[in-house]
C-alpha cells in the first residue's frame, strides 16, 4: 500500500499531514510526502532551473525544501517517524526525472517515508506521481478550490482523501455510506483498518433515494455491520431516505470523517455533470475520503 500526501503552505498542511499519516500508519503503508512548487511559465523554466541550481551551489534551500524540512520535523515531533534519524540539513537533492526531485537524507532514516519535490500544474504532477509509483490513496488539503477536488477525483487513479477542517484535538467518528458499488467495498476496507487502528466508532449508513425500501442495500448494511463487529469496531447502522448528497451532508458533523465509494458513473458524465461523492466532498465541512 502506498500513500501520497500533497502539502503546500506550512500552517495549512499540518492537518493534512497528521490525518494522512494516521491513515498511512493504520494501513501500514509507505508514504510519499510531495510538495508541488509553483508552475513555471515555459518562457522562464530554464532560467528558474539555473537560478535554483545556483541556490543549491550556495547551500541555500531551493523553494519547497524548507517546507519538506518542516514536514519531516513535524512527523518526528509527532512520532510518526520513530527510527533514529539524521538532521535534515544533511540532505541531498536527487533529480530523478523531469520536474521531480527526491530529498535523500544521508545516513539511517525511515525507508517508509519519501520526500518529493515537484514543479508544475498540481493535478498533472499528482497524476504523474500516482501513475509512476502506484499510490493507492492521495491525501490533499481541503483549502484548495472545489474545481481542483473535482479534477483530482476525476483524473487521479487512486482514492482521494480531502482533509477539510481537521483538528488534532477532536475525537472523530467515521461516517460510512455503503451501496453495492466496487468503490463502496474499497471504502469499507479502508474504514475498517483505519477505525481499528485508531479505535474510532463507525456510523454505517445507506441511502434510499426515490424508493421506500431496498433489500439489497439493507443486506449490504447488515453485512458491513457484522464485519465491523467481528473486528471489534463499535458501530451503528442507519437507513436514510431522500437525496443522497443532502442526507449524507446532513448526517456528517464536524467530527466525522466521511468514507465513501467513487461513483460508478460514466467518466464523461461525471466530468460534465459531476457525481454524488464529489458533491459530498465539496459540501461537507469535514474530511472526506472517496475510495476507488
Amino acid at each position: 500500500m502506498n500513500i501520497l500526501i500533497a502539502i503546500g503552505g506550512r500552517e495549512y498542511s499540518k492537518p493534512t499531514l497528521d490525518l494522512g499519516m494516521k491513515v498511512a500508519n493504520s494501513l501500514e503503508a509507505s508514504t510519499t510526502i510531495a510538495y508541488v512548487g509553483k508552475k513555471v511559465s515555459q518562457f522562464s523554466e530554464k532560467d528558474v532551473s539555473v537560478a535554483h541550481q545556483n541556490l543549491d551551489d550556495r547551500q541555500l534551500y531551493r523553494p519547497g525544501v524548507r517546507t519538506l524540512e518542516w514536514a519531516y520535523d513535524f512527523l518526528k515531533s509527532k512520532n510518526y517517524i520513530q527510527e533514529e534519524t539524521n538532521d535534515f540539513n544533511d540532505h541531498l537533492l536527487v533529480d530523478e526525472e523531469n520536474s521531480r526531485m527526491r530529498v535523500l537524507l544521508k545516513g539511517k532514516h525511515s525507508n517508509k517515508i519519501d520526500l518529493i519535490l515537484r514543479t508544475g500544474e498540481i493535478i498533472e504532477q499528482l497524476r504523474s506521481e500516482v501513475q509512476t509509483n502506484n499510490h493507492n490513496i492521495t491525501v490533499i488539503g481541503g483549502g484548495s478550490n472545489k474545481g481542483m477536488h473535482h479534477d483530482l477525483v476525476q483524473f487521479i487513479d487512486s482514492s482521494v482523501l480531502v482533509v477539510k477542517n481537521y483538528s488534532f484535538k477532536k475525537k472523530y467518528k467515521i461516517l460510512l455510506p455503503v451501496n453495492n458499488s466496487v468503490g463502496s467495498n474499497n471504502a469499507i476496507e479502508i474504514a475498517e483498518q483505519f477505525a481499528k487502528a485508531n479505535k474510532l466508532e463507525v456510523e454505517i449508513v445507506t441511502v434510499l433515494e426515490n424508493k421506500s425500501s431496498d433489500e439489497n442495500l439493507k443486506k449490504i448494511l447488515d453485512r458491513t455491520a457484522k464485519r465491523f463487529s467481528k473486528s471489534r469496531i463499535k458501530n451503528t447502522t442507519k437507513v436514510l431516505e431522500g437525496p443522497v448528497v443532502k442526507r449524507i451532508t446532513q448526517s456528517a458533523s464536524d467530527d466525522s470523517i466521511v468514507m465513501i465509494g467513487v461513483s460508478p458513473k460514466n467518466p464523461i458524465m461525471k466530468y460534465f455533470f459531476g457525481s454524488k461523492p464529489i458533491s459530498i466532498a465539496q459540501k461537507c465541512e469535514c474530511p472526506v475520503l472517496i475510495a476507488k
Partner: protein
Amino acid sequence: MNDSYKIVSSSILYWFSQKKWFVFSILIGLALINMSTPVGLTVSAYHSLVILLMVFILVTSQPIPFPAIALLALVLQVLLGVAPANEVASSLMNDAVLFVMGSLMFAIAIVHQGLDIRLAKIIINIFGRSKRLFIAGLMLISAVLSSFLGEHTIIAIMLPIGLSVIRNIDSSKPDGKNAVLLTLFSIAYGTIIGSIGTPSGGARNVIMINYIREFSNITIDYWDWIQYAYPILIIQLIMAYFVLQFAFPSSLDNIQLQGYKKSVAKSNNATNIRHIFSSIIIAIIIVSWFLFNEQFGLGIIALCGVLIFMICGMVSWEVINKNTNWGVILLFAATISLGFQINDTGAASWLIDKFNMMISNLPEDSSFSWSFMAIITGLTANFFTSSATTSLLGPMAIELQPNNIVFGMSAAIASGFSFLTVISSPTAMILYSTGLISVKLFFRIGLLMFASSIVILYLMSRFYWVML
C-alpha cells in the same frame, strides 16, 4: 461498465482538460479561415493574422510545448499560403534570433562561474556603510548589470545574494517581512528596469532594432539605444526606490548586515583567477557590443562570448545544452518570421488603417495613438512576455509612424515594463518560484510602477527624444 472503456474515456477527458485551449485555438482558426476575407486584405495577409491570433492564444495559455507552437506557426504559414517554404525558412534566422540564442547560452556560461560571491563583496565594499544604501546598491547594481547582460543572467546571480541577505533578517519581528520584501523587490525591479537600458539588455530590444532597420531603413546602434533608453532607466530606478520604500516601510533594524558581511568574507576565494578571467571575457563582449555591433551584429558577438568560455574549458557543452531553453529560441524564430510575413503581406498596414479609421473622430494628436500603442504593448507583454510581444506587435507599432523611430522604440521599451504579472519575465517568475511573494502582491506593487513607467516613457519620448 467496461473497465477499458472507462480508462480510455478518462484519458481522453484528461487530454481534453489539459489541451482545451489548443482545441479552442484550432476551432477559432478553422472558423476564421472559412469566413470571407475582410475587404482590403489579401488572402495571405488575412491568414497571417489568423495565425497570429492562434499563436497568441497558444502562447498565453501554453497547452502545448513552445517548440510545437513554433512548428505549428511555421507549417501554417506555408500550408495557408502566407509565404512559400523557402521564404519562411529564410525569415526564420536573423541576428535577433542569433542574439536570443547567444544571450541565453552566454547567461548560462556566466552564471556557471559563481560570480555572485565576488559581486556580493563589491556591493558590500561600495554600499555597505548603511543598510538603506546597501538595499539601494542591490537595486542599482542589478540594473546596471542587467542592462548589459540581460535580466535572466543577473537575476540568477543576484538571487543567492538576496536570499543570503534575507537569511540574516529576523522576519518574525515587526516590519521584518517588509525588510524581506524590500530586499527581494529591490533586486527584481533593478533587473527588470535595467533590461531596457541597452540593446543587449533584452531580446526585444534587438528584435526592434532589426524591425526598424528592415521596415524604416533607420539604423540604431548600441550607443544610440543607450542615449534613448538610459535616462529613462535612471528615472525609473529613482521612482522604483521610492515606490518600494512606500510599499514596504521598514526601519531595516531587522537586517543583520554584519552577519551577512561575515558570511561573505568567509567564503572561498580559491576561484579568484576564474572570476578575473570570466570578468575579462564579459568586459570584452560588452565593449565589442559597443564597438562592433554594426559590423558583426549583437548575436554573433554574444556567441563569441560563449565560444570563448567553451574553448577555455570554463563551461561544458553539456551544461549549456541542458540549461538552454531551445523551445524559446525556436518560438522566437517562428514569431519573428511571422512578424515579417505580417508586414510583407500588408496585414500590418491594414490593421493600422483600421486603427486610424477608428480614432479618426478623435482630435488629431499622435499622443493618443502613442498612448494606445504603449499601453497595449506594455499590457500584452505582461501576459505574453516582452520579446514575443515585440516580435508580433513590433511591425504594427512601426507602421503607425514608419519614418519616426519613436513608436518602435517606445513599443520595445514599454514591453519591458513587466511589473504586473509573474509570468511576464524570468525575473518575476524566479522571484515567484521562491514562494516568498504572491501573484496579488506582485500585481499590486507593479500597478503603480507600470503606470508611472508609462508616464515617464511618454514624457521622455515627447520632450527628451526630440532633442537627440
